[in-house]
């Protein structure tokens, strides 16, 4: 076959697969952000810090309670989700009537405080978290060596993303959520408890972030700044996909993962900036994002 710009096709397929795997992380994280913004109109800058808390929660469970990774997958999102609910009730509730930007400032402040506290206690190098033995090792696919864990990450992310999209777009609960944010007064008049819906939604978005954190713990070092590195990219993904669109952020997450993977092959020094260049171009051509609706 052809060799594209000096890269043999096998290497290219390998990089595309890696890009897809990274894309699934972006998709999962941007899903949580999109849910929170799309339904609640809150720009949740604390998302990265909550992702980091999910990873740390998994570490706590292993270190102090001896509970394995599989338990952490269920308990960490619940635990961090509860924290998210508390934060929402205490702080975010006050800001719904105000401009978006206050929410952004508050969540940004929360992120800095949370990261600072963790860094104070645990340092910046991070903590070790062993990969679960059932998922370690890998198989040689011919064109690359695929670790089993990465395959698992893609499968889980795709499933969770599709499940979330289905619940929000196709079920009664989802329709209540969407209605409650479009016209809270009217929906409340019908007897639906709107503040509780909002709290649950925020808690669910946070739980998604924590879930991604547990997925990340065995492969990325569990460190206090793991979230801040990722959050800016995730925001770019959500903006490109369209700030209100659930499916948009999922598809864009995967697509951008692939594009970033290709950049790493041809010009790795630019791999950090490729996504932002695309964001700038998309915003110039279609300001509401690729799949977004005007708010």
């Amino acid at each position, binding site marked *: 076959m052809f060799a594209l710009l000096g890269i043999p096709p096998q290497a290219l397929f390998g990089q595309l697969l890696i890009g897809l795997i990274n894309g699934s992380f972006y998709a999962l994280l941007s899903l949580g952000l999109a849910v929170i913004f799309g339904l609640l109109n809150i720009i949740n800058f604390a998302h990265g810090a909550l992702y980091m808390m999910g990873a740390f929660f998994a570490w706590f469970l292993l270190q102090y309670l001896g509970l394995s990774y599989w338990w952490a997958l269920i308990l960490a999102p619940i635990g961090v989700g509860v924290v998210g609910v508390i934060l929402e009730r205490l702080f975010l509730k006050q800001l719904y009537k105000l401009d978006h930007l206050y929410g952004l400032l508050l969540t940004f402040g929360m992120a800095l405080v949370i990261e600072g506290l963790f860094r104070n206690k645990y*340092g910046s190098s991070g903590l070790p978290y062993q990969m679960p033995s059932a998922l370690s090792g890998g198989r040689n696919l011919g064109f690359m060596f695929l670790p089993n864990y990465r395959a698992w990450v893609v499968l889980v992310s795709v499933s969770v993303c599709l499940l979330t999209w289905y619940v929000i777009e196709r079920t009664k609960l989802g329709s209540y959520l969407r209605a409650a944010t479009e016209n809270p007064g009217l929906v409340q008049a019908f007897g639906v408890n709107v503040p509780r819906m909002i709290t649950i939604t925020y808690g669910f978005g946070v739980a998604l972030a924590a879930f991604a954190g547990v997925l990340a713990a065995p*492969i990325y070092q569990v460190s206090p700044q793991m979230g801040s590195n990722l959050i800016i990219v995730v925001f770019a993904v959500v903006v490109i996909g369209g700030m209100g669109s659930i499916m948009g952020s999922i598809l864009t997450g995967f697509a951008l993962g692939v594009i970033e993977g290709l950049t790493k092959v041809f010009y790795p020094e630019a791999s950090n900036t490729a996504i932002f260049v695309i964001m700038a171009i998309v915003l110039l051509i279609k300001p509401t994002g690729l799949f977004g609706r005007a708010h």
Partner: protein
Amino acid sequence: MQFARSLLLSAAVALCATAAHAQYSGGTVKIGVLNDMSSLYADIGGPGSVLAAQMAADDFTATHKDLKVEIVSADHQNKPDVGSAIARKWFDQDGVDAIADVPTSSVALAVADVVKEKNKVFLISGAATSDLTGKACTPNNVHWTYDTWMLAHGTGTAIVKQGGDTWFFLTSDYAFGHQLEADTSEVVKANGGKVLGAARHPLNTSDFSSFLLQAQASKAKVVGLANAGGDTINSIKQASEFGIVQGGQSLAGLLLFITDVHSLGLQTAHGLLFTTAWYWDLNDPSREWAKKFAAKHDGKYPTMGQAGVYAAVLHYLKAVSALKSDADGKAVVDEMKKLPTDDQLFGKGTVRVDGRVLHPAYLMEVKKPEESKSEWDLMKVRQTIPADQAFRPLSEGGCPLVKG
């Protein structure tokens, strides 16, 4: 106007120096510890370096009661513009006389320019690039602990001699990574090996899967990690996930600190070979100091960078005390080069004319989990490299201060 005023002030200070007791600018010797306090290099230096500097100040003023020393600190966030702005403010407004530590070579190079311009002293411990005592050397630099040449020759030579003659680099895309890759490539080629390629990644990358894939595809016998801190930790962790070592390639961590190994855990890191300038378990004086340090630092043991800050500040204070003045940076550095170094961590050594401090280097191997007897008992010494062989020969550096 500003120049005339500072000239007048220096003249006044110079006149005061003839008085019976010592006159230090502002009455105290003020040392600023500048490093990464919040990001991927924070554990290598960070608040620990500030503690090390304070311990040096306390130890020195205990026997020299006429000297007053103040330690200040700031976070350079790994950004050269932030680092040089802080340095400028410290020198112009806050009366700081010397800057210590400064990991992140790009920031160190920027700060070195400011130090030279203001004629103060630069006590380098955390930064790696060998250019600081080479092409970019100044009469105000003193480079302690380690540099890229020492790492390249210590680790590179050992690995090539073991049979690792083809290399692929994972390089941090800034001054430090490039210099480390260049120095190590030179060693590999000089020993008959070949460099098959390099993947340059941005600083503070969390995912190395695509670069590791390129390393695997190159079929090089050794994957050299020309990065540090959080980047190295993630590279090593993901290399084990992708079966780099099982696939027959070996990893060369060119720059590893004890905090990186502690963070990775011995299960993942055992067997790694790397060069260090200091380790807490080398001898009794080092052990004693490390325990004192850990007691004040949340139980965390010191890194070689932090040990270097202690030794550098101690030697600086010796020179300032001998000269009875801290005003002229070049004069203090000249005094530091005249006096032999001697502290409980690095033992006896010398400061060369290009600013390079000569002390032994050690080739270390990370222990297996069953070999470790305590939380911070993480490595063993494989080889001691004597001081005269550990660092680049004076003639090869290209430093303008070296004559002939």
